[in-house]
């Protein structure tokens, strides 16, 4: 095998330019796959971290009627906060949130919204609820930047809020935008107004009630209390939609890298086909000298596999510094919000050892495979034909 490896290496060295070009093309595919997958992993992790920080927390207890995808359930999706939750709330380990349907009128017009009441100053999620302590006599409101743009309001502006009161009557109250939060998480922004929990409960006649209870991120699940009528939704469940969306996006993004990689493999395949055709006489000579046709197939396959090794080494030369730089300094990602889930404007790709090792193995195996495909023909080539430079 070492003899074959040595011969394969010499054959590649003798065609230095072709070897260099093929290896470089394959290394581009190799580096682009790692770059792309690292970027997508970075997107994945960042989107999940944002969702956890702003919305999901360490999981949520949902009042049994609550269905965030069914607006009509909101009118009855509330219940008194169970006594078993109180210690968590008092220790700041969880925060109750009341969700009721409503409408808001601004200079732009009337719009149905979800009104969310949260404890001012809570630290469980990153909603800037400290602003809900103010209001200058008016009902303080915190909105996300996207919502503010939809309403055409900014901090200090007033809006007219309507909701259903205790006797099913319409309650109308004037609110003042206390803060506009810059959050990449659309699920706490679009179509929502954040209000002080007590004030919202009072207006809706739902004092002491909540729709959901968000637990602090990292809080041990085995220490969570159970409460009848309240269903715990783990972070994994709450993030499943996000993960599905990221998965859909990553498939689309991966296609580009896969196509690039396949083109590089095609270059190796072409080179092998040409090489085998051109070197028929050499194949016959190798057999005459005492090699089996199987060994000659291995020789040509090794040549292809060596392209993979060279590509990995070449890729490491320019890829590693690039990856280290990107990992430390990130990539500007101004279009992140258009992806449909939370992303910051600077993206930090994540290059795990598993990704690098896995991709390297993929390159080596794929290069050997595409080299082996045309080399199989050698096994059917008669040595006497090969020695005459014929293809049988």
């Amino acid at each position, binding site marked *: 095998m070492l003899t074959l490896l040595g011969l394969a290496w010499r054959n590649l060295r003798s065609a230095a330019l072709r070897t260099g070009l093929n290896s470089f093309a394959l290394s581009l595919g190799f580096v682009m796959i790692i770059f792309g997958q690292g970027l997508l992993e970075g997107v994945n992790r960042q989107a999940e971290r944002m969702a956890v920080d702003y919305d999901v927390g360490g999981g949520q207890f949902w009042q049994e009627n609550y269905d965030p995808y069914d607006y009509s359930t909101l009118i009855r999706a509330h219940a008194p906060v169970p006594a078993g939750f109180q210690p968590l709330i008092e220790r700041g380990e969880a925060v109750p949130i009341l969700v009721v349907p409503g409408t808001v009128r601004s200079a732009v017009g009337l719009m149905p919204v979800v009104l969310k009441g949260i404890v001012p100053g809570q630290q469980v999620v990153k909603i800037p609820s400290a602003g809900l302590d103010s209001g200058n006599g008016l009902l303080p409101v915190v909105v996300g930047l996207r919502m503010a743009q939809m309403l055409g309001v900014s901090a200090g502006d007033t809006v007219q809020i309507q909701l259903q009161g205790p006797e099913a009557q319409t309650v109308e109250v004037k609110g003042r935008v206390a803060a506009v939060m810059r959050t990449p998480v659309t699920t706490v922004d679009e179509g929502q107004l954040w209000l002080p929990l007590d004030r919202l409960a009072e207006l809706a006649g739902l004092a002491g009630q909540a729709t959901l209870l968000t637990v602090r991120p990292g809080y041990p699940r085995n220490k969570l209390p159970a409460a009848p009528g309240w269903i715990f939704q783990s972070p994994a469940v709450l993030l499943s939609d996000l993960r599905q969306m990221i998965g859909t996006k990553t498939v689309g993004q991966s296609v580009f890298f896969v196509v690039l990689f396949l083109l590089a493999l095609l270059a190796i395949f072409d080179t092998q086909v040409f090489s085998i055709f051109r070197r028929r006489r050499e194949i016959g000579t190798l057999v005459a*000298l*005492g090699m*089996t046709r199987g060994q000659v197939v291995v020789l040509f396959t090794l040549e292809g596999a060596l392209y993979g090794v060279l590509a990995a080494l070449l890729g490491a030369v320019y890829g590693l510094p690039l990856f280290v730089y990107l990992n430390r300094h990130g990539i500007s990602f101004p279009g992140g919000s258009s992806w449909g889930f939370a992303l910051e404007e600077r993206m930090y790709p994540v290059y795990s050892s598993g990704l690098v090792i896995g991709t390297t193995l993929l390159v080596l195996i794929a290069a050997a495979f595409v080299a082996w495909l045309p080399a199989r023909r050698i096994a059917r080539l008669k040595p006497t034909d090969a020695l005459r430079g014929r293809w049988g």
Partner: protein
Amino acid sequence: MLNMPDNNLIVETVELVKRYPMGRQELVALKGVSLRFCRGEFSGVIGPSGSGKTTLLNIIGTLDVPSSGSVRVLGETVERLSPAAAARLRSRHIGFVFQTFNLLPVYTAYENVEFPLLLLGMGAQERRRRVMAALEWVGLADRANSRPAQLSGGECQRVAIARAMVKEPALVLADEPTANLDAENSHHILETMQKLNQELGTTFIFSTHDDKVIGYLRRRIRLVDGRVAADETG
């Protein structure tokens, strides 16, 4: 036909027939060839193009198998050998010299001659000794580091002879070895082969229609239309 004792027998063919399919018809290249070659012979199969010379050498060299009949090479029945066993036989005991030299272009002269020894798994020191000795036999020790593209046709063929001889095989098969060489180089090559035959006792079987080669042969087997037409010694 020579009648030598069996322990000297290197090659024996019995009623050898080789047919090649040619569409619906078939070409019969060998039509019942029976021959015996003994240790130390310097013999040649001569005849015009298409007479079956190369086919015979290919079958003796285990690169091809007969359609019928039998071939024994160094005690092994060729038609019964597995591809791996045939490769082992070639690797250990048979050297080839081709009309077009067939050197590996990416190797130097030294590496070309060394290659058969690498396939035999020989140690580096013994390899080096044998390669240099083989290159000295053919007078090319000073061109050891040259690649085939840097050598003349005669030098390439001498490297090919060194490659065939380096493992000191029992049998060397030379298919039109002088066809691409001028007269001076042809004589040089043939004298080298004759010297190796006499010094090492290696059996040489040529395939040729070159009068220069025929003049050196001690035994001449004339093939005509796939049959042995004459077998002369002396």
